[in-house]
């Protein structure tokens, strides 16, 4: 019997069901928060899946691009890395896409790009109405999407970002965002309404405030979140900034977390927190169970990751268009991974040291995605500085975030076994 062909977004919807099960399995009795999050993501992806059929433009965007502008223009922004990340862990499709892509591009291109390129070459995903990426954080991002836009014929816009951070640079990025708005207006035949943008920014700011409060609460010992809960919020924060539903979710989540911290409750249901780990770069998205295995086997909670280290403040002044654009430009600069990987190495190490210190980490985990050449080039500098400043070890793992064929789950766990037996013995 021939297998029914499923679009990538249908696959994501199926993945979310499995994701929910994985999260609930480790969440014990207290799974309300996870349920809320899954409802949120299900609603969002359903909206994305129906967008084009309903005449709403679908925008593919990189994780750092401010989704608020797209929501304000009644478009649906889909963060491509989120889609790839959700397709990757469940079933063989992601690997098929990677193999398909490698017929046309080198294997050392980022697998996040390869999943999407393979899906496009397979015809499992329709072209977006527009695609927007910034010029940072990496060469794969810079190279692949512009090329794909020409190969598959859809409009593309690059937000150019200066390498060195400065006030002038923020103004330049704000100018780029304004050009992006003009591009979107031209390609989608709709105008950006300032009042709608302001309202979207209000929601974004509210969500932001709650997120910062939750982040603060998560610094508690024991950590009130399980590892997977922390990682699972990433897609919602990126895709739904500017939506009231995200505010509702984070508000409820904040209240729940506050209560847990007040009672000194851990996010772990079946083990005790013994170690606090911070993923200072990538992590095995292909195997979410590694995180719960770490909890169960060693009482090691992944208290945060670079990707989830949203530290920027809400956009203070949203009284006019220019100020909003300046605020969003500042936000873009400080988005996790863009901040760490898009500029000189001080940006990486400063944010990493601050994160590890704030979360009281016992060890840093450098989940070195094989495609991230820029991070591999500073890995020694980073490891040495963390040891020097914080006195904690860094475990270097060579892996492909989306492809278990590079380093398998078993191989990763063997590395952890060695690490806990030798370096981290308590």
């Amino acid at each position, binding site marked *: 019997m021939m297998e029914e062909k499923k679009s990538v977004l249908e696959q994501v919807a199926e993945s979310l069901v499995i994701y929910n099960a994985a999260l609930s399995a480790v969440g014990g009795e207290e799974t309300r928060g996870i349920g809320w999050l899954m409802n949120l993501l299900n609603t969002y992806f359903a909206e994305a899946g129906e967008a084009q059929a309903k005449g709403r433009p679908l925008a593919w965007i990189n994780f750092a691009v401010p989704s608020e502008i797209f929501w304000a223009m009644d478009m649906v922004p889909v963060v491509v890395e989120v889609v790839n990340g959700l397709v990757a862990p469940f079933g063989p499709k992601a690997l098929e896409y990677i193999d398909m892509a490698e017929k046309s591009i080198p294997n050392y291109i980022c697998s996040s790009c390869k999943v999407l390129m393979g899906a496009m070459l397979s015809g499992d995903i329709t072209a977006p109405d527009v695609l927007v990426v910034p010029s940072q954080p990496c060469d794969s991002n810079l*190279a692949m999407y512009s*090329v794909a836009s020409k190969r598959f014929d859809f409009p593309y816009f*690059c937000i150019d970002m200066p390498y060195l951070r400065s006030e002038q640079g923020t103004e330049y990025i704000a100018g780029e965002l304004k050009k992006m708005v003009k591009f979107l207006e031209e390609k989608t035949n709709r105008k950006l309404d300032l009042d709608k943008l302001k309202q979207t920014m209000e929601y974004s700011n509210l969500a932001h405030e709650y997120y910062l409060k939750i982040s603060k609460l998560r610094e508690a010992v024991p950590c009130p979140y399980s590892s997977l809960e922390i990682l699972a919020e990433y897609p919602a924060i990126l895709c739904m900034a500017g939506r009231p539903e995200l505010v509702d979710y984070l508000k409820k989540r904040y209240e729940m977390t506050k209560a847990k911290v007040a009672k000194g409750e851990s996010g772990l249901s079946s083990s005790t927190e013994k170690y606090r780990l911070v993923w200072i770069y990538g992590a095995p998205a292909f195997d979410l169970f590694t995180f719960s295995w770490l909890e169960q086997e060693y009482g090691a909670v992944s208290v945060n990751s670079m990707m989830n280290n949203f530290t920027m403040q809400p956009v203070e002044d949203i009284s006019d268009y220019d100020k909003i654009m300046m605020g969003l430009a500042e936000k873009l600069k400080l988005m996790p991974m863009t901040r760490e990987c898009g500029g000189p190495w001080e940006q990486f190490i400063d944010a990493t040291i601050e994160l590890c210190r704030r979360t009281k980490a016992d060890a840093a985990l450098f989940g070195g995605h094989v495609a991230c050449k820029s991070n591999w080039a500073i890995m020694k500098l980073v490891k040495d500085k963390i040891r020097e400043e914080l006195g904690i070890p860094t475990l270097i793992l060579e892996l492909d975030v989306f492809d278990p064929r590079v380093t398998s789950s078993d191989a990763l766990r063997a590395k952890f076994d060695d690490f806990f037996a030798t370096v981290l013995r308590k």
Partner: protein
Amino acid sequence: MSTLEELTALSRNPVNPAVNEWKAEGKKVVGFLCTQVPEEILYAADILPVRLRAPDCADTTSADVYMSHLNCTFMRSCLQYMFEGKFDFLDGFVCTNSCDHTRRLYDILREALDYPYVHLFSIPHKVGDEEVTLWHRGEITRFKESVEAAFRVEVTEAKLRQAIGIYNETRHLLRELYELRKSDSPPISGAETLSVILAGNSLPKDMYNQMLRNLLDELRQRKGISKYRARLMIAGSGGCDNPNYLGVMEELGGLVVTDSLCFGSRYFWEPVDTEGDLMLNLARSYLNRPSCANMTDRVVERGEFVKQMVGDFKVDGVVFQRMRYCDLWGGQLLYMEHEFKKSDIPLLSLEREYTLGGAGQLRTRVQAFLEKIEG
């Protein structure tokens, strides 16, 4: 010794008698990566710009302590040369954010080595529009100010105009050299041409210009190469600075008649206007030259430049080479293979390391490609 032999000898090492002589006069030498650095600024400050290369680097043990096996061997070789002290004659470095590997060299330089002057020249990643050009003008101005402050010199408008004029002359002379290669019997091979260009990477340009004039005179008298199986163009990523790499192709009968390389045409194709705002002219020219794959809005134009070359130089096939782990050029394949197939232009896609280790494999691939072209 003919001028060609002289230039070939000078191309073998970034340090040459002219560099030593320059240093002996008490003048400064600054290394740079990559061709997007406007050398004219340094030259106008009476500083000799030397483009970084590590041509004989066979081992990257010291560099590998900092960079990983996932970083390109061109950059690791340059870093190795630094650790070995082979760039100790330099008074500073200018790096760019042209790619992930290059920009991280800037970080390692500052943390692990002790050079008196290190500057990051930030480039945009799209040619874009007037705002991008103006921003780039600002970066060039900051670069000029940094050079002036570090070396206590003044880059006056007159000096800059003169430097641009000298560099334009180089560009003009190299274009003339390429014109000769359009002939059915080109008087110079691809490997020889690459040597000529490499020599210019670490020679004072006024001296180099005189040598180029002599070379052109000699080549006009030289018997052309008429025995070859196919006319090839070589395109792709940086780090392609080994004449022997082209030599392998040419030994098999594939005469390299043109290129789209940063150690080739992309370095000198566009002149800089000498009238009006010189900083703006530099910004315009450097942004609008045939681009590296790091210019994200120039995918089609890069392909068109190659196609134009194919027509002008009567090219039978394009060798598209790139360094292993070069995402920027590797990604271009998705478009180029597709486009060139549509245009019926034979394309050979090759991955390479900086050192020419796989000559046997290269020979096999090129031989097969030539047979395919011959039908």
